[in-house]
């Protein structure tokens, strides 16, 4: 099905940021009518490749060829003009502009006197959403869209470009099964129309479902490019991490202790209603459901960053004041939020400040901080989580997505929580680290920490949880024991109908 000649060739490109060599001498080809996966651990250099294709970064050495001619992709506009559309790892929308305008920016349909034809623009957006099978009002501003919806708008944006090369950097990280299926359907039709797709994901089942060819990267270098028919998942993982992995879900069996987190009658109109559950010490409880079912809102309300209308939260017998994260922290609650860029990290501050921020009071002596203890703590915890960084004083924003996630985890694990709430803890994390995170959660539970995990990844939910709570449209609709929880039963509860996956 692939054309004989490559549509786009990446030839021995390299890119360094100061001392960090993010990409070194990487070459691969993309063919029209083929989906090409790019895999690698966090920080392997995948997004950097994407940004070079997008014209955001210029390669230090090497070249990018389109149809056999070298391209100078100095700016995103150049890449756009060359027919390359990119979905970035992090959504890049204009919050003040309407969704339709976001999609059409720079390509707005023009009417008389070169003025923008708004009606046509809105129609265009509506058609794209129809193709993706979602209903987002094209006239509403992008501000306030959920991450998933933002990602969907990004996808619509890339579709609207009618590009010959479509690059997707973890487009599915924020999506659930149904939306992923929709996206794949659209991606396949693009591919069948002759476009070259490049697809990045940390989920192998997605890669095998969509792609024909896979390029594996490690530490900025090209490891191999194979047809997916020629390589097994285990081989891919081995090539990625350079070693064999242990079990992905190393769940230890722990006898549950006393109730550590007790939630009763929690409501917040219109997001969730009458949510009640317990989590015991040593237990891992998963909160499953579709995107937008209100899971994140529930845990944020428990932690106090979001308000609540009614209901009580008790931690080890102590009732928490609503709306006070500070008190929740003091009672031993930690929340690893779902959106690390906005909620988890201070992108322009150093790694050490990020890691120790929640603890700055307890690290102070007589109310003063000298910096030494903070540095020591930060070093200890980032090393525990095997975070890859240059110096502790570097901006956390310079780390790769996965390493940023590790910093968030380090930040909260360092507070020694009694109740650890993790919201999508492994979103955007590579398999190796994912296993580490899971092992860590297990061992924390074994040490008597109560873990509440929000996750959209069913395997993770099923593999890790002692109990699964399922939410649908803001209500807790099911509580499944480890033995009862299966893909079917969880999906049934989450959707209210027989799962079709």
């Amino acid at each position: 099905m692939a054309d004989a000649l490559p549509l786009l060739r990446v030839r021995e490109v390299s890119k360094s940021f100061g001392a960090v060599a993010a990409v070194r001498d990487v070459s691969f080809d993309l063919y029209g009518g083929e989906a090409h996966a790019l895999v690698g651990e966090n920080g392997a250099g995948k997004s950097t490749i994407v940004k070079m294709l997008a014209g955001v970064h210029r390669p230090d050495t090497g070249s990018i060829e389109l149809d056999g001619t070298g391209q100078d992709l100095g700016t995103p506009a150049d890449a756009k003009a060359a027919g390359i559309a990119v979905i970035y790892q992090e959504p890049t929308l204009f919050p003040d502009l309407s969704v339709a305008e976001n999609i059409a920016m720079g390509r707005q349909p023009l009417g008389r006197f070169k003025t923008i034809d708004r009606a046509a623009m809105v129609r265009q957006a509506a058609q794209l959403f129809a193709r993706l099978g979602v209903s987002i009002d094209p006239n509403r501003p992008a501000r306030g869209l959920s991450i998933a919806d933002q990602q969907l708008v990004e996808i619509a944006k890339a579709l609207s470009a009618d590009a010959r090369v479509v690059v997707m950097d973890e487009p599915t990280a924020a999506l659930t099964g149904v939306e992923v299926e929709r996206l794949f359907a659209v991606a396949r039709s693009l591919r069948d129309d002759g476009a070259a797709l490049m697809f990045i994901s940390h989920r192998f089942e997605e890669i095998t479902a969509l792609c024909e060819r896979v390029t594996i990267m490690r530490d900025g270098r090209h490891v191999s490019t194979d047809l997916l028919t020629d390589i097994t998942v285990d081989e891919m993982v081995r090539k990625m991490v350079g070693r064999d992995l242990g079990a992905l879900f190393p769940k230890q069996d722990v006898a549950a202790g006393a109730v550590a987190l007790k939630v009763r009658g929690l409501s917040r109109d219109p997001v969730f209603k009458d949510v009640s559950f317990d989590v015991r010490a040593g237990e891992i409880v998963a909160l499953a459901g579709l995107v937008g079912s209100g899971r994140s809102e529930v845990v944020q309300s428990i932690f106090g960053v979001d308000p609540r209308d009614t209901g009580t939260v008790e931690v080890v017998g102590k009732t928490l004041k609503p709306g006070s994260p500070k008190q929740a922290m003091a009672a031993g609650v930690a929340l690893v939020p779902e959106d690390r860029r906005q909620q988890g990290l201070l992108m322009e501050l150093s790694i050490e400040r990020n890691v120790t921020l929640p603890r700055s009071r307890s690290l102070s002596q007589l109310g003063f901080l000298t910096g030494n203890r903070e540095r020591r703590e930060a070093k200890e915890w980032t090393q525990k989580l095997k975070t890859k960084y240059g110096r502790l004083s570097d901006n956390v924003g310079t780390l790769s997505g996965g390493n940023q996630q590790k910093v968030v985890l380090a930040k909260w694990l360092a507070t020694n929580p009694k109740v650890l709430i993790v919201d999508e803890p492994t979103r955007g994390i590579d398999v190796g680290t994912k296993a580490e995170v899971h092992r860590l959660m297990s061992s924390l539970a074994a040490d008597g920490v109560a873990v509440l995990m929000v996750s959209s990844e069913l395997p993770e939910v099923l593999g890790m949880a002692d109990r699964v709570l399922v939410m649908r449209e803001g209500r807790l609709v099911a509580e499944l024991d480890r033995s009862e929880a299966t893909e079917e039963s969880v999906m049934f509860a989450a959707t209210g109908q027989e799962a079709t996956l």
Partner: protein
Amino acid sequence: MSATESAVVSRFANWNAAIIAITVIVLIVAAASVDSFGTSQNFGFLVLDLLPIALVALPMTLVIVTGEIDLSVASTLGLSSAVMGYLWNANQPIETIIPLCLLLGAVLGAVNGFFVTVLGLPSLAVTIGTLALYRGLAFVVLGDSAVADFPTVYTDWVTGSIGGTPIPNVLIIIVVLAIVFGVILHATPIGRAVFAVGASEQAARFAGVRPGRVKFWLYVASGLISGLAGVLWTLRYSSARADNGAGLELAVVAAVLLGGVSIFGGKGALPGVIAGVVLLGSLQNALRLSDVSNEALNVVTGVLLIASVLGPNLVNRLRRT
């Protein structure tokens, strides 16, 4: 993007040191080349001229680090001065008036804080509004009159120096407050929270910081110090007037930015700001002594301000290529 971000961090770290070095050099050159720049009397004048800017710049630094701004400081100073004159005319004891003026400053700051944190309005807009409001109220209170004849014990203390030494009394106030604000910003959990709020308000909230509360108290501090500056201004000139300190807000912001604080919040250091204040003040003093006209002083201030942000940036760019 993140490449420039990291450059920005090191740039500000470097700039902090650079501005201090530049200030020291300017002081040395001025002392060597400008007659009577280095005299103890001139030092006294210099410190008195710097006083209001130096004081107000301290809380302003913290406010700007949180990503907000307070343009109402000069009007707060003016209102504090006007109220001081009004009460003095009403025959109130100065010992009551001064605390009242400080309290007034704090309340005015709290009003700013309320609008910014409780109502969530942009601080640039809010404080442009209170800039007009407070100055207007100052005129309402004192109208066109000027109140003089403040007790000489107080006015002499403000203009005087520590028993026989050439060190002006008010320098004590500046130094003490600079240390207080410096320690708070750089070596306490509050300071960490201030930086966190400036870097990302939402992420700070998720880490247990209460951005609203941090900002609110910073505005109160800003108002309080502006009120104090109003009292000292009045005593220094022995003249309470509604238009005292008009236009000072831009000079303060200029000094803070010159000191390497990022207008976008999250970055900056207090020693740099102090150096910025001293640099601006001593340069103006030296140029004035060398009979350089007022116009030139304006141009120098402006160019310096632009250079302070442009210079490190260009150097960085050259170094990278």
